[in-house]
Every structure is written in C-alpha cells, then in structure tokens.
C-alpha cells in the first residue's frame, strides 16, 4: 500500500492518539524487521508507538525501545514462554508490556487463544490466559477477534466485555471496525478502553475527525 512511516506521519498530523505497528508474518518467518521503520517514524511522530510481531526476547524488546517504540505487543512468544511477560515487565515496566491476544470463539462466551496471526490454535482459554497474563505483569491488553478481523462487520462485543471486566488493566479492542456505530458500541457495550483500527483508515473509508467525534458521543452517552 505504501511506505508505513508516511502513513504514520499522516495519521499523527490528523490527530491519531497512538500508533500500532504489527508485522503479521514475523513469527512465521522468525524475523523482526520493524526496527528500521520504527526509528524512522519516531523521529517525527510524537505520540506513543506500540510495536508487535516477532518479539521473542528481552533483547528484542530492548532494541525496539531504543529505536523509539514505547511499548511492545507480544503474543506468540508469550504463549510459548509466559515468563517472558514477567521478564519484560520487570526490566522495562508493565506500562510497555502489552499482551496481544488473538481470540477465536469456540462456544457462546468461550474463546480460544491463537498465535501466529490467527493461524495456530493453542488450546488455551482466552479469559484464563488474560488473567494469568496480567498476574505475570502485562500492563495492557491488545485484544483481536480472529473471527471479525478484516470483516468490517463490527467488533466481537461479548469478547471485549468479557476480557475488559476480567482484568484491571486497559483493553484495546481490535478487529471488525467498519462503521462509526461499531466504534460507539464497542466503547459503550464492550467497555473497551481503547480501539485499534487499520483498514478503515488505510482505505480512507472513515476520517480520524469522524472517528474522534463518534468517540466523544460514545463517551458522553448520546445517541450515535
């Protein structure tokens, strides 16, 4: 689609609150090549930057933070080695340890955690894992619905509400944003603390101004 740091700069200028970079095939190829993009972005973008995809060790985190990231999002490596969550939190603080969770629904009000960008099952229950992750030191949850991602059909509200009420740390809802109504309902009914979106912006279906206005309405409790 184009150069990521140009998108980043454009969204920063349009008033985005935060940027999230995820290399979605990093774990598959066991690579981590976002460092260069992050450092270029951080030179002229003055909002928080979260980076995920292929983060496997305390050393990987250190390199990304030095490049200008504020937080790292870890999924696959955390499922394989939960102690990594604690090591990162102790070394750099919980505020930069974002636990990324990819959730796929298996039954009403039950979800299973997936890894490798929604490709691999883990057999791990999402609510049990999110509670454990917070005990281990995660300071924030990036919660993606595998079922809804890319559908534009709205967020999995039940999932977001279940996770947001299960833990005392902020939850970022991701996956399914298609309309402003989706945003309003995930905030009001899902109790999302933050909402992440990608293609509605990349393809210019919505503007950040529209999104901010809808958010204000959602927080005030007016009709969407």
């Amino acid at each position, binding site marked *: 689609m184009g150069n990521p740091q140009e998108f980043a700069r454009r969204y920063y200028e349009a008033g985005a609150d935060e940027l999230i970079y995820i290399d979605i095939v990093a774990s598959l190829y066991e690579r981590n090549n976002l460092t260069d993009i992050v450092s270029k972005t951080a030179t002229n973008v*003055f*909002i928080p930057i979260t980076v995920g995809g292929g983060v496997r060790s305390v050393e990987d985190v250190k390199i990304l933070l030095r490049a200008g990231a504020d937080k790292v999002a870890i999924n696959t490596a955390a499922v394989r080695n939960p102690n990594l969550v604690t090591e990162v939190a102790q070394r750099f*603080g*919980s*505020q930069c340890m974002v636990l990324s969770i990819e959730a796929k629904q298996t039954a009403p009000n039950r979800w299973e955690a997936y890894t490798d960008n929604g490709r691999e099952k883990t057999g791990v229950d999402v609510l049990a894992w999110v509670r454990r992750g917070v005990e281990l030191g995660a300071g*924030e949850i990036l919660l993606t619905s595998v079922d809804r991602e890319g559908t534009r059909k709205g967020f999995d509200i039940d999932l977001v509400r279940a996770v947001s009420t299960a833990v*005392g*740390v*902020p939850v970022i809802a991701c996956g399914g944003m298609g309309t402003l109504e989706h945003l309003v309902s995930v905030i009001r009914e899902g109790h999302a603390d933050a909402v992440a979106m990608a293609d509605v912006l990349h393809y210019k279906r919505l503007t950040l101004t529209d999104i901010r206005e809808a958010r204000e309405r959602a927080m005030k409790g007016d009709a969407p």
Partner: protein
Amino acid sequence: MSLEVTVVDYGMGNLFSVSRAVEQCGGTVILADKPEMIDQAARVILPGVGAFADGMSELHKRRLVEPLRKIAVDGRPLLGICLGMQMLLDTGKEFGEHAGLGLISGVVEPIPSTGTDGQPHKIPHIGWNALIRPPACTSWADTILANIPENSPVYFVHSFTPMPAREEHRLADCRYDGRRVSAVIRSGNVYGCQFHPEKSGTVGLRILMNFLALKKG
C-alpha cells in the same frame, strides 16, 4: 544559537523520544550522567520510567542528587517527566517508603483503585486526558503551560501519583473517573509533568518549547 538542554541519563528508560522532541523544539540535547555535567547545565530535564526506589538509587549511584538539588537552589529551570516528576517530591510510597529529591513537598502514592463512584477503575491510568486548571491556580501565563488552552489532551501512563502538600504547587490536574490527579506541579523554576510531553503531539511540543524559553529565576 540553539538552546542547550541537559537530559539526565541515569539508566531509567529511554531517552530517544525526549531527545527527539527537544530537538524538534529547536533545542540541543546534552546527555548527562556525571555530577559536573549537571553543575554546568543551563536547564535540565529529568525523564524516567520505572519504580521510585530504583530511580533514586540510580541517581545516588551516579552522585547526581546534590547537583540536581543545586539546580533548583540556583533557579536554573528543571523539568521532571513521569518518574522524574515523582522524584521531585519528599517521599515515594512505591514498594516501601523512599526519600525523593525533596524539591516540592509532598508524597507519591498509588492512584486510588476506584473512581469517586466507588467502582474499580483501570490501573495504570493510560491514555489521553485533559489538562484542567486547579481552583487555586489563577493563570498559566509565564509558566510551561503558557498559551496552552485548558482541556488540552496529553498522554498519561502511570500507576502512582504525586500528592503535593501545598495547593499552590499544583499547576494543572486531570480527572480520572472523578478523582483529581496531579498533571503538572511547579515551585519556582522546578516543574514536573506526570504526562509525557514528548508523546503528547503538538500540545506536548509546545510545553517543551515553553520550558526551553524559561529564564533562570
């Protein structure tokens, strides 16, 4: 000539963002990890992320505590950010009680775990929140908040909060589920920001620019 800003490098977190933001505001950054570098500084930023006790112990280890106190005595501008702000106070209550720099009287306590409605709320307090003027503060003119409109949003991430002993040291607050949370404190040329100006977009950059423009008191 561009304005020199001495940023304290004491092993508590990343200096890249603060340095880049200062440069964006037209400043030149000097990273300082030795007492004599602080002694020579025209103005100092004390950043930092992490626990209070660790921060103070890293400052002591590098013999930076007395030079930082001297900055305040001399009236040279000093800006603490996040943990750097919290260490300006007398005492931190994170993992036990620990002495701070004692430049602004008060203690640093955990953010109350509920809002004023008694409902539990999220800790850490992460995200954008609006700067409001405390009742006792009449104006932000001639401070680092000069020309910043009230209710401007800035970016917070913290679990502990400074409780200044004197109301007049509160320059700005924010509201977190009804609770008043200190956002900016000030005593003379000693300033502390709980939020991250280097991550608060154009408002944050303007605050840093105002800090660069402060004259020795």
